[in-house]
């Protein structure tokens, strides 16, 4: 097998790694410890392996690692930290946009790809932007809200700053009881 020393620049770090030509960027990144890049289908159907290559979001499962040489690669772990989350990351936390979380790294990067190009996206553009990131848990609703809120936040303050969102009370949690009717009484011994 024809191994080559490939230089990969990931989240600002430089790695040199011997790779065969048939290794996809997904496997190369995961083997380097970037396990935030998820494998969900290995054929571009699910978006869990999304990374930014240069300024473009791509499916890392469809890119051979040799072809990613010397281009900056960003994974969600490079976007922010617990102390300094990216506004998108903070918004996903605040809106409860993650359930199992497996799709979230890819979805956040897709959202970043969107906001980089369209800082003030329409609802339709938000949906379209994450339409390649399948999620089975959440129904996407909270991701929409989070992305919209993050866009506003970035517009106001730029990214890279920690901002706390108000709790998403506007999201139709209706904790109040309904007014009881005849037959609908509650508590039982």
């Amino acid at each position: 097998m024809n191994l080559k020393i490939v230089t990969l620049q990931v989240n600002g770090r430089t790695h040199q790694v011997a790779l065969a030509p048939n290794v996809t960027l997904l496997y190369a990144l995961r083997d380097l410890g970037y396990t935030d890049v998820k494998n969900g289908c290995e054929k571009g159907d699910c978006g869990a392996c999304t990374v930014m290559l240069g300024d473009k979001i791509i499916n890392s499962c469809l890119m051979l690692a040799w072809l990613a040489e010397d281009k900056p690669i960003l994974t969600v772990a490079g976007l922010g930290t617990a102390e300094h989350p990216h506004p998108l990351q903070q918004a996903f936390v605040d809106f409860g946009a993650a359930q199992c979380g497996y799709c979230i790294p890819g979805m956040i990067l897709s959202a970043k790809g969107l906001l980089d190009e369209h800082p003030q996206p329409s609802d339709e553009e938000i949906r379209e932007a994450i339409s390649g990131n399948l999620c089975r848990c959440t129904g996407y609703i909270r991701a929409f809200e989070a992305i919209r809120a993050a866009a506003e936040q970035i517009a106001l303050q730029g990214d890279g700053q920690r901002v706390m969102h108000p709790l998403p009370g506007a999201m139709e949690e209706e904790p109040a009881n309904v007014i009881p009717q005849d037959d609908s009484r509650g508590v039982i011994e």
Partner: protein
Amino acid sequence: MREFDLVIPKSLPDALDALAANDVIVQPLAGGTDMIVNIRARVAQPNVLVSLNDIAELREIRRDNGTIVVGGGARIADFLKHPLLIENAEIARQAAFHFANPMIRNLATAAGNLASASPAGDMSPPLLALGAEVALASKAGTRTLPLDQFFISVRKTARRPDEIISALRWQVPPQHTGHAFYKMGLRAADAISVISVAVVIERAGDTIREARLALGAVAPRPMRAYQAEALLNSQKFTDAIVQEAARLASEECSPIDDLRGTASYRRRMVKVYVARMLRQAWERAK
């Protein structure tokens, strides 16, 4: 994944040299969104892949007098973002918007999508409807084929193994041209088409100067609906002629049953959507 070698030429001549090797299976690698999947699924079994990724000249998008020239390495996303394409390939822009998903659009190339020659390939009907040609380059030189002659059958094209699509070309659509594209999938995004319909109409007053209709996923290859076109050209735009053209188109296609739909349903949808797209394109041609 199966083993193969990968060469990454920086120039078109180097790529063509690499493709000319005939002792092993050599295949060009464009965006890879089909090829990598096919290798993994063992549908494609190349010994050597020649990446077109780093060849700057293939990324060119330019206007050459009345012709739009799109390099073989241009991405689907370019159809959504490049001013020249937004202006001169409205129907391809519409198709690109429904092409897979944003990540794939950043990798996949239009030429690669054509070269894969899936009957359901998303870019084929709009480029057929634009009357596009493909330039096929090899060490022996470059030949040009109308796109319609490029497709042969399911996943078969006129491309020889030593050739790549170096460019796509089409005439700048004249004024008063309307474009309409519809892709029917089984969900709202990122779906393989059940059928797709692309219509480009050039209008002169209340007369159809020229109509080009292309259909996807209803024949072994993406197809032009020539009988329907012939009926429409130089005729007044009426409800009756739209209905008749839609009927002809649904008869001249040859769909099959598969897991996304039956042949008879597809035929019927061709009829519905050809009529709808004709009307839409006509409206837009004003």
